[in-house]
């Protein structure tokens, strides 16, 4: 059963609201406040990173260099590509090098512009389709390469940021074993806080359901501390920096 019976949810909802009063009231009580909890917004003088950190800034070139160093150190591959024109050839080469038989990509004009269908007609290409979720998900689970356009990148931690929407399935950056992430240079930030600040600003209006920071290929050290790459998530991760 996918969606619950509305009456079941309504009943749980009612119980939840009754319980909330008691639960949070008890917390307020322990903290020496009465009622159902403090309703005034507390002063929050320590919000976010220490002051000095918010002034930390790298130049454009430093950001790119730092990102690439971090991404490689985490076990990922990264290349700088002069422009969108060259990008198509680079993606094609990577797909061939790894013997990919199939691709899935976010439904974005920039990625359609790679013209993979023409470049590699022998491969099976698919575009994420939020209208056909089950088929898209099943396809992603058994596709070799996922191609995404990132929302942001963070140089200091070597992280990519991808968010979900109808056009941008979360599965595309997760299920295929080969991830190719396109990073336009102007989206490269210095600090995590720059991305957080934006998320914080839109917190009230509603965020994308999924905001994912990705900092290299999937890894585990759970067997005798031996590093294993590609447990669950992509084992081969490319960040292609365009511009």
């Amino acid at each position: 059963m996918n969606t619950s019976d509305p009456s079941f949810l309504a009943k749980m909802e009612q119980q939840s609201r009754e319980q909330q009063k008691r639960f949070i009231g008890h917390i307020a009580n322990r903290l020496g406040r009465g009622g159902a909890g403090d309703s005034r917004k507390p002063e929050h003088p320590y919000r976010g990173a220490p002051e000095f950190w918010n002034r930390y800034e790298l130049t454009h070139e430093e950001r790119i260099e730092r990102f690439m160093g971090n991404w490689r150190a985490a076990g990922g591959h990264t290349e700088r590509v002069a422009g969108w024109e060259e990008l198509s050839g680079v993606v094609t080469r990577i797909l061939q090098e790894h013997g990919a038989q199939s691709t899935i990509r976010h439904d974005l004009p920039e990625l359609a512009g790679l013209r993979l269908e023409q470049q590699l007609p022998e491969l099976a290409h698919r575009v994420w389709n939020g209208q056909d979720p089950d088929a898209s998900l099943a396809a992603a689970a058994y596709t070799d390469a996922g191609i995404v356009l990132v929302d942001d990148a963070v140089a200091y931690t070597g992280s990519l940021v991808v968010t979900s929407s109808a056009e941008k399935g979360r599965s595309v950056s997760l299920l295929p074993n080969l991830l190719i992430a396109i990073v336009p240079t102007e989206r490269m930030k210095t600090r995590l806080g720059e991305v957080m600040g934006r998320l914080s600003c839109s917190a009230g209006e509603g965020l994308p359901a999924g905001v994912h920071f990705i900092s290299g290929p999937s890894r585990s050290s759970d067997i005798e501390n031996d590093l294993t790459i590609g447990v669950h998530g992509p084992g081969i991760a490319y960040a292609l920096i365009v511009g």
Partner: protein
Amino acid sequence: MSKPQGSSVKERAETALKDEFLVNAVKFTTEKLKNGKKAATAEHGNWEEWRERGRQIRAHTIAHLDYYLNQFVDHARAQGVHVHFAPEAKDAARIAVEIAKHKQAKSVVKSKSMVSEEVHINEAFEGIGIESIESDLGEYIIQLANEPPSHIIIPAIHKNRYQIADLLSKEAGETLAPDTKILAGFARRKLRDKFLEADIGLTGANFGIAESGSIVIFENEGNARMVSTVPKTQITLMGMERLIPTWDDLEVMATLLPRSATGQKLTVYMSGITGPRRTADGDGPEEMHIIIVDNGRSLQLGDPDFQELLNCIRCGACLNACPVYRHIGGHSYPGTYSGPIGAVLTPALNKNTEEWQDIANASSLCGACYEACPVKIPLHDMLVYLRNRKVERGYTTAGEKLAMKGFKMLMKSSGRFKQAVKLGQTGQKLLVRDGYIRSQFGPLKGWTAYRHIPALPSRSFRERWPQLDAEVGASLPPMPEAMKSRMESIVAGRKERGTKR
């Protein structure tokens, strides 16, 4: 899940010490993680400022937990999340089971969650015939072995590749070579199918963000992303104290947590999940439940000695720093949480005074846990409070005077402990001979420094008091000044507040 034999910390430690692989694995792993942290914090710089900011944010949130919880719940509901409240462990399990039953679920796939261990969720699901599968590689391994995790960050720290190959071969129905790649490859294939089949994905949460009702999960494998992307229903279990006010605060936690846990700049994945999938999205859960769990946490609120326990971000750095943990491994501790944090949290959550007696002994009080802690929780002081409360509640025949003498003795044994640890490899080897402990210091002696191996290892700490008192009285070396003033201020502080609680 079966804990290794022995009911007391000491007995379990003895069992653990007989397993040479375990001893070496724990040592190696904790050393690796500890060095990773050291390098990462040095590279990042200004670590003390970051720690202090981390402490400030956590302390502020806990001091206003009522406000932030209401805010979190309002925002989560506005995004379509079904929020539930579980005062006790059994309530959390009951709510999860109710949802699963209603959905006629056949299988639940889980990512790592300490709270789910706390509320014994696997047993609850299995009790009604629902398969519950751990998907974190380490957790999957120990689930097959039917054992609890022994380290917060690396749960299968105590298993070698041959044991793992045996476990996975049984699952595969064929013999798998004891090779990491082959074993991990099998787990990937096997679990991939499980993700796709599962009706429900169950996750924990490292943080909840009050201003948007989001949950945040840190991980390296991608299994938590799978669990929150593929199944149609997601249930998230979250300790009620996990909150931070804003996304801006997440930058601080993201700076402190991975560096302290493994020395990474950031875990491979950090996912912020805000509600179920939007109508047009093609993946992510269609229905999302968050169960907010108390289970003894609220007992720490308003308690000046222990409220800071709720600041913990579960990084495991105190385990890796603790000479006692490094020596005896996770299964020696009772309950879900091991190491210094477990030694304080377990009895605090249970309000189990009897247990304090046993577990508060399992520390050298050297303060390494505090030094390691990214949010500056004074665990070593808390261990002293535990000990002190035990005295107050009459769990020892000795009075306050004797207990204070005990403090001095701790300091003495702590000094010895440090010295002995410095001896390094050679000293370590001498500890375990013929599978038995010959330690002259540390956990196996409680806080004491015996001259001889006890003939009756099961004697309780309390029973040893008179003898110890005599022994210590005979030759009490001076306590280091810093330690002494700290101990004195603790005791003075307690007196001022009126001690009996």
